[in-house]
């Protein structure tokens, strides 16, 4: 269990984080969503120990996170970086060793990962000679080479081609299935919705919404959508606040059973359901609230 507790951080006069807390249980994939400059990267950097918080703490399995445990984490920073003049295989293995693996194990793991990423033939090439997309794959290999216990990934999907997105998504799911807490940020909300067990929304350095995807959706204002094959306009007849969306009626704050009676007496009801908001809608709602 990784817990980020009440982080505060200022850069000069700017408040970057104002009491940020979130947590990831073993096997849980947490999506971290927020506008640019909301505080995602700062939170992740503090969690990875590359930035010091003004206050607050990071707790791992019930104890403050130490250097040795953090070394077993996998991290992908928002700004990618690799040694351009180092061979691909050597570089991935080097990071494995830095994370505490033996030389042989790091080499083996690097070879396996690059094989999975379809880069086996490029192992002896300098990173600077790879295409940008392949460099991204190497970056992914660097964050996964030591079989990390926890994954903290800042925008892991940005700049990836569809195949690499699948590889990355599978990798996240695999790590989670093996019991690792996974936290990742993304602006691609469809990916968040597909991959995440829970979502944390941050805005201006504060957590403005969090919970499982279902919880967040349930919390949103419900809209009843009705499609009726009727000649007359039912706007005045239906209960609650009624708006039109094309031929559909959208009802807020009205008794749904009453609405069904009105609709079915007017004609054939082809659709009668509550709209499920997408994460994108929840996000927009949350940040503009």
């Amino acid at each position, binding site marked *: 269990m990784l817990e980020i507790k009440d982080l505060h951080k200022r850069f000069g006069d700017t408040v970057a984080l104002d009491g940020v807390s979130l947590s990831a249980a073993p096997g849980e994939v947490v999506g971290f969503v927020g506008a640019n400059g909301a505080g995602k990267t700062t939170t992740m950097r503090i969690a990875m120990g590359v930035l010091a918080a003004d206050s607050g703490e990071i707790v791992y399995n019930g104890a403050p996170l130490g250097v040795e445990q953090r070394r077993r984490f996998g991290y992908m920073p928002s700004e990618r970086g690799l040694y351009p003049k180092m061979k691909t295989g050597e570089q991935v293995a080097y990071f494995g060793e830095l994370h*505490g693996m033996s030389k042989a194990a790091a080499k083996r793991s690097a070879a396996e990962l690059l094989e999975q990423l379809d880069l086996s033939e490029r192992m002896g090439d300098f990173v600077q000679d790879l295409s940008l997309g392949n460099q991204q794959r190497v970056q992914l290999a660097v964050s996964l080479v030591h079989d990390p216990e926890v994954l903290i990934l800042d925008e892991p999907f940005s700049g990836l081609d569809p195949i690499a997105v699948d590889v990355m998504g599978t990798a996240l799911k695999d790590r989670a299935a093996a019991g690792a807490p996974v936290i990742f940020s993304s602006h691609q909300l469809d990916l968040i919705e597909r991959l995440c067990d829970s979502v944390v929304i941050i805005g201006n350095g504060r957590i403005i919404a969090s919970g499982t995807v279902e919880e967040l959706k349930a919390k949103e204002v419900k809209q009843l959508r009705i499609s009726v094959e009727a000649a007359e306009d039912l706007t005045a007849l239906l209960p609650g606040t009624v708006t039109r969306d094309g031929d559909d009626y959208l009802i807020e704050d009205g008794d749904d059973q009453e609405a069904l009676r009105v609709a079915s007496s007017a004609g054939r009801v082809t659709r009668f359901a509550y709209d499920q908001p997408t994460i994108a809608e929840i996000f927009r709602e949350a940040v503009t609230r």
Partner: protein
Amino acid sequence: MSNQSAETSRMRGLMLVAGREIRVRGLSKANLVSLLVTVVIVGVLAALPSLIGGNEEDAAIGLAGENAPAMQAQLEAMGGFDITVYDTADEAERAVEDETVEAAVADGSLYSLDGVGNEVETKIDAAWQAASVQTNLANAGLSDQEIAGALTVEPLEFVTLESGGVHSTLDYFTGLVISIIMFMMLMTPVQYIAMGVVEEKSSRIVEILLTSLKPWQLLGGKVIGLGVISLVNLVAMVAVGLGVSAATGMLGDLPPGTAAAAVSTIGWWLMAFALFGTLAGGVGSLVSRQEESGSVLTPLIMSLTLSYLGAIFLLNAPTSTFAEVLSIVPPFSGIAMPTRMAITEVPAWQVGLSAVLLAAAAAGALALGSQLYKRSVLYTGSRMKLTEALRRAA
């Protein structure tokens, strides 16, 4: 989960970073080629004095005629001649013709195929004059003892009023080579360290590195790695230099303590490198782009260049106050002291004081450089002011 992984100890992290530098930079083609070229140059330079100075073989000289015994005595006293005495001038002339000897002196003539070298000619001429005087005196009826008494001249005694005021070309040459090597061996790795720091910073890889390494490991490993590369280069050069000198028989001719100075040069280099290397890492971390690194490195490059120029100046006046001060005050002492030690005797207290001051300065640079590095390595954007870096909380 990752139970295959051993705990990465602090030293392991440091050594991994150093090892990477050695693999990537030390074993790079560029470094290997430059090492080879430098070693060849040093070897040629070391062989040069013997090539110029000439330890050539004894000149074979034939003698005949009245003065022959006296000439033989004179030439043997001078040394450097392989003498054959012939019965007649004709025999001596024939020996020159069939190249049994280079030249022959008989009855007042010097026979040779196409002249003799200046040095040989001067010596033979001097021997001829002395032998002629000896023969003339004997003909005038003086006894051998009287002749010996008349010819015995005490050689001039050279008295220098300033101790160590006169230095041979060899001393100068040794000092020059040491100062050049020191300068090169500091300049190159110092620039590589700064470049490496900026490379990691500009490529943002430092952010990943710092999740598993402490800043001191990252900076320390880099300094150690480039230090090892340079040390290998330096040892190779010193070994080749001394080896070639020994092989050409020049080692014995070098001023006393030259070999020791060459070896102690490595010690001076270690301290000077610790000083300049860590500072280079520290100031390198102030900038985020490679093209800005020149501006922050300027003070370091300047003081290195001044140290070198000072050492060259010192070679011409090794006992001046300027030389004494320069070889004691860090960071200049790093190059100046080993240079001065090669050319002149330096009082032990000065060597000791210089070493202590340089070591203290290196320790200070280590602290300052790593603080600068720690505080500014994750800061990206425009160049960070030195004062700001020092003010920032780590």
